[in-house]
């Protein structure tokens, strides 16, 4: 397929001046180069073939979808229809239009800067009114922000306490009571306050340590020799500290890798968490079930304020 350039490419708006003569323009467009392709049967065949291909693949997509063929079929047909139509349009334009390289002048400033925009000039008056008007409009606008606090409930002390209190039984996610002997050595159970299963911030972990708890663990809140309970909500960004590593009695947060030493009061030993997981005051009621002796001491979850 041969192409014939009508004009050699030359510079537009040459900085050296206008001696090169004004560039050729067509309808306000400065044409730099123009190549017109010869009519070609091969190209015509390609345009027709791909256009029909696009139609066929489009119908194939519709049929495949409607008769319930798997995604691999109708998805592929749709993709092929897109590609086919794209190729057809490309070659259609190639055949129909000369390829043009054009230049466009960046427009210069048209309005003289000192000429006012409006033809109607304001009268000479005191500036006070303008200032008061603008200021008042601003105050009025700001007072609309009074709607913002309606977007959520009042915070108050909400985030500083949990439903855990003296005598509240520990429940599993399925709503079962927990006996100390239900938790095997190295075992771990997610516990919720009775009546608040799924209340995220109250989630606790009951853990049977492989060894003896050491300070700063509060010994009075340990049941038996080694059964302890801690908040499950990471003090870093609030993810559940879901993974327990038995070999060194540590809790590990899968979100940002904060690691807590369960044997020593769940103090952070690695990662971005700065505070220990609060310990749940743990006891056993007269029926032999695990209960809380009070709320967590210290803030549960990430810090704020």
């Amino acid at each position: 397929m041969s192409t014939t350039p009508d004009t050699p490419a030359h510079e537009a708006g040459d900085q050296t001046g206008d001696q090169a003569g004004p560039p050729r323009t067509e309808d306000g467009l400065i044409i730099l180069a123009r190549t017109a392709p010869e009519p070609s049967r091969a190209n015509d065949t390609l345009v027709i073939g791909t256009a029909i291909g696009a139609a066929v693949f489009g119908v194939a997509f519709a049929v495949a979808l409607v008769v319930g063929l798997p995604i691999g079929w109708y998805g592929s047909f749709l993709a092929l229809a897109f590609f086919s139509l794209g190729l057809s349009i490309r070659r259609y334009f190639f055949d129909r239009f000369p390829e043009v390289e054009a230049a466009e002048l960046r427009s210069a400033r048209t309005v003289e800067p000192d000429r006012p925009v409006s033809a109607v000039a304001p009268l000479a008056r005191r500036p006070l009114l303008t200032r008061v008007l603008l200021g008042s409009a601003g105050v009025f606008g700001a007072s609309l922000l009074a709607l913002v606090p309606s977007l959520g409930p009042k915070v108050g002390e909400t985030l500083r306490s949990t439903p855990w209190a003296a005598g509240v039984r520990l429940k599993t996610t399925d709503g079962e009571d927990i006996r100390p002997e239900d938790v095997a050595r190295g075992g771990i159970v997610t516990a919720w306050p009775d009546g608040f299963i799924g209340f995220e911030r109250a989630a606790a972990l009951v853990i049977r340590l492989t060894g003896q708890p050491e300070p700063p663990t509060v010994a009075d809140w340990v049941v038996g020799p080694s059964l302890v309970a801690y908040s499950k909500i990471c003090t870093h960004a609030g993810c559940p500290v879901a993974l327990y590593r038995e070999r060194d009695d540590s809790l590990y947060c899968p979100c940002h890798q904060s690691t807590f030493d369960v044997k020593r009061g769940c103090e952070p030993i690695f990662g971005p968490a700065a505070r220990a997981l609060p310990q749940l005051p743990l006891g056993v009621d007269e029926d032999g079930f695990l209960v809380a002796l009070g709320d967590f001491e210290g803030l549960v979850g990430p810090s704020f304020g």
Partner: protein
Amino acid sequence: MTPLFSALLDALDDRMKLRSPTRAVANKVFPSNWSFLIGEVATISFVVLVATGIFLTLFYRASIEPVTYTGSNEFFAGVQLPAAFESIIRLGDDIPGGLFVRRVHRAASHLFIASIVLHMLRIILTGAFRKPRELNYHVGIGLLTLALAEGFLGYSLPYDSLAGTGIRVAYSITLSIPYVGENVAFWVFGGEFPSTAIIPRFHALHVFVLPLLISGLIALHVLILVRQKHTQLPKPDVDGHSYIVGKPLWPGQFAESSTLVLWVGGILALTATFIPWSDVTLLGPYVPGEVGNNAQPDWFLFWTDGLLRAVPPIEFTVLGATINTVFIAGALIPGIMFGLLFAYPFIERRFYGLEGEWHVLTNPLDIPLRAAMVMGTFSFVLIASANATNDILSRMTGITIEDLVFIFRAAMLLAPPLLAAGIYVYSARRLKREGARVATNELEAQSRFDPPQITTS
């Protein structure tokens, strides 16, 4: 043109006087270079997102109320699921083409953000942000911000286990804002996490508010572009300061752009056919107090997650405000990065005392400060992003997570300044070797690029 069609056009022109504005638009010249099409890919992706999103929103239930699944997926048969998650499983398994449309939507969202980032990289590297285009650059940063927010919201809507964890971390970051964090978190999330208001709100923001804002900003972006005209890649014998050289909109650029729409459509359809984008059935629904391994956001927020993992435990109180590591990693450092992005056009202009308007693009190595800025910030973002996969890397390589985090912390602190300094020195020497300095106006810059033009005059 068929007689009927041209008669219709004539009738329309008779009433609306369209001929002369149409002629102006048809003869607008577009630079013919592939890198100028990346922004168009972003726009096309957005159109695909709107079209597929309308389909999805007809099936999506914006609620976390538990419902019993009765669809054809055997794994979830009879299980109580949050309504949002249930509606997505149902869409995927029981609506013909539902899974496909959802995958195209996900694929287009990745392409949307990726092409915005690449487009921005071109703008920054070549200096297309310089006067008079600062405003459009800032509109572009607004679009990037909205696109990231839109991506995060879309990631949250299925309410799978990853989505719930992501919302939890976003809630904690909001909570960490000094003084007002608790209130702002309650205002944004409608109460304490996981409040029942979150999903309805995210849905309204995702399908209505943000798309509207994005559409408005895209329109503004294009209007400003048309008003100010394109920049010009440096080309011998072309005075890019006064002219744009390329293809007219009709027919050259129209052929280019209309086929680009079809290439993008085809690629999205192809990937949606063979890649199971966001296969939430594998993740399961979000359950309070539970989290899976490999808890990661989408790739475009890896850098913030990497920062959350890397910034060491810091917590102190100053003037009654608690500053913690989440605030530093999740709000302060990203805020500084965006601030730097926002301010860079002014920094460069002030630093080199640049004058006048700039329309011809430059090689970033000709502007040492720019090369250093891009190298420093992007290497920082890339290393931080890599750190968001440290748990996976640790499992793959056998290096302990402790050592990996230490390596990443060191790399994030040392590599960006070193790389930035290195490229600064390299490009400054390169300029010196050529006997040039950073041009302070475009005429000087062009004379350096194209010396014969000046000397022969």
